[in-house]
């Protein structure tokens, strides 16, 4: 059974522009996404896209931190988008999130021990004090900290250790899916490498699956088997990571081309223009003003996400036509 399935999820926000004007911002449009995390080809999923493309909003919808404006969310076959918080206990335990700013996500007045004990108390109320303590020690070791760190406060840890603590808090309740929202962005190379390996190891040891939200393509390629590309609040392509080089959507190809690399002389190829303003998407394909391959139909008709081959979907009029 599909672990998590979003069906035509949409989210819009009303923001005020001045005191008399209200504007609606469509952050996510009709996104349908199945996370069948059981199969090998989709164990870890990468969600990539520029800032403002709706990645974070989609994550907030999938983790039900926010209710979708339209559409439904199925968790193991059960519709949960409107369920009250009380009935979400199992879902909340199974889906954990690690945020980009680990330091800000840890309570500065709680020692590591208390930070880790809280999720245990919530989801495993039957644990005795001793069991909790053992579990905390065990998890601290697994993320590369030591049991002696139990008494330390977040500010006493280095940036890398704070990230590890945030990871420990996520995996301590044996989740099925851990969502990492830019969890490795902006870090030093060696630390980023350490964390990526830690993710891999925890994945193998505990059967944790990841949804890695990132604009760092090399990291996504390293960790994920499946890549979902978002643009302007929509999924434009969804394909296995090892087939990235055969991607069909011009936006995905542009992303790959803008990745700096050493081989050959890097001729920086970049997309002209800016990502569209989320309050006024262009008609037709939202990417067409920047698309190097646009044809006449692109300005008129919105392309839908269609199956190109097994596990490969793309939303482009040209996809699959050559």
């Amino acid at each position, binding site marked *: 059974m599909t672990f998590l399935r979003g069906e035509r999820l949409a989210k819009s926000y009303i923001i005020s522009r001045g005191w008399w004007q209200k504007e609606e911002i469509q952050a996510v449009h009709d996104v349908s996404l199945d996370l069948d995390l059981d199969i090998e080809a989709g164990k870890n999923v990468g969600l990539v896209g*520029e*800032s*403002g493309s709706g990645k974070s909003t989609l994550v907030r919808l999938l983790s039900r931190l926010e209710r979708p404006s339209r559409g439904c969310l199925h968790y193991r076959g059960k519709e949960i988008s409107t369920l009250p918080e009380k009935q979400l206990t199992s879902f909340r335990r199974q889906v954990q999130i690690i945020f980009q700013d680990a330091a800000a996500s840890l309570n500065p007045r709680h020692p590591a021990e208390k930070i880790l004990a809280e999720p245990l108390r919530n989801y495993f109320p039957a644990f005795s004090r001793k069991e909790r303590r053992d579990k905390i020690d065990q998890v601290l070791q697994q993320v590369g900290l030591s049991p002696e760190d139990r008494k330390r406060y977040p500010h006493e840890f*280095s940036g*890398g250790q704070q990230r590890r603590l945030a990871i420990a808090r996520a995996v301590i309740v044996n989740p099925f899916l851990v969502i990492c929202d830019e969890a490795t*962005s*902006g870090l*030093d*190379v*060696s*630390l*980023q*490498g*350490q964390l*990526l*390996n830690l993710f*891999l190891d925890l994945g193998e040891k505990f059967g944790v699956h990841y949804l890695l939200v990132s*604009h*760092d*393509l*090399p*990291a996504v*390629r*390293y960790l994920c088997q499946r890549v979902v590309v978002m643009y302007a609040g929509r999924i434009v392509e969804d394909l296995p990571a090892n087939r990235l080089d055969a991607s069909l959507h011009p936006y995905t190809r*542009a*992303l790959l*081309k*803008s*990745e*700096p*690399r*050493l081989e050959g002389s*890097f001729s*920086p*190829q*970049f*997309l*002209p223009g*800016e*990502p569209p303003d989320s309050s006024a998407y262009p008609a037709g394909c939202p990417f067409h003003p920047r698309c190097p391959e646009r044809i006449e139909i692109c300005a008129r008709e919105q392309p839908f996400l269609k199956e190109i081959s097994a596990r490969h979907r793309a939303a482009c009029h040209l996809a699959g036509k050559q």
Partner: protein
Amino acid sequence: MDNVHKQVLEVKNLSANFYTSRGLIRAADNINFNVGQSECLAIIGESGAGKSVTALSLLRLVPHPGRIEEGEINLEGRDLLQLNPKEMRRVRGEDLALVFQDSLSTFNPVRTIGSHICETITAHRKLSSAEARDMARCKLAEMGLPAERSFRSFPFQLSGGMRQRAALAMAMSLHPRVLIADEATTSLDVTLQAQILHYLKKHLQECCMSLLFITHDLAAAAAVADRVAVMYAGRIVESGPVREVFRQPLHPYTSALLRSHPSFCPGRLEPINGSPPDLADLSPGCAFSPRCLKGREICRNKVPSLQELWPEQQAACHFHQARKNDLREAAVT
């Protein structure tokens, strides 16, 4: 062949120390490098390696309690450390310009982008305000921005990528000889990063500008730089042409860095264990020795000096000779 660049910026034995309550911190220790005309030198390293202090030293903007201890900064034959404050003010912006990572705090939030650029121009050039405005618009257009709109915008009205390009336009408004980009593309999207790198490269060629590109992003450095200097704990541990350094790193730190990055390491990553050292409490020997897989007795006692091993490629490691032999054997087989 114009491989021999005319040297524009030469830095010799530059040291900057911070006098803190925890003791003396050598944030930049005996730094030597030079940048040629139209050349890009990337300085890479982890946070706390002294990259930014080096950049600030060049502009003599090291914040209190730091101080430039010794050295020479020759910009086209002039030693910047000998200039008086007034002369130094003329150099900043006009000959040496700096772009920071955070473009939102580069600009004053209550003033328009245009007024920032005009201020820079009129502070250095005797131009009427109309001429300055034209020049500013022209610079914005060169960066691929809609000139009129971005000129009148406030910083918050532009997207991150546009703002960073506006910051570049401002830094380049006076055709500086050397542009220092301190993490200028970090934390931008790949597409925006490619945009910025494109404009930087274009200006290197067109304006005969030199670029000092400071970053911890190895891939960006590999893409834009001609030469690269790797810093660790306040010292340069390896420097050389970008291809050679990335293909056959001589210093264990450089090769370990490359093995930590998914773009350069096929298969499972082998990140460096531990974290960068505390600069207030450095071991007497090679600063990298506690994390180095090859660390021996001599590494813990003696600081290795930077030695030229291949033409133009230098490394500071006691075991460079062995490494060189390894590489040579690998090349033969």
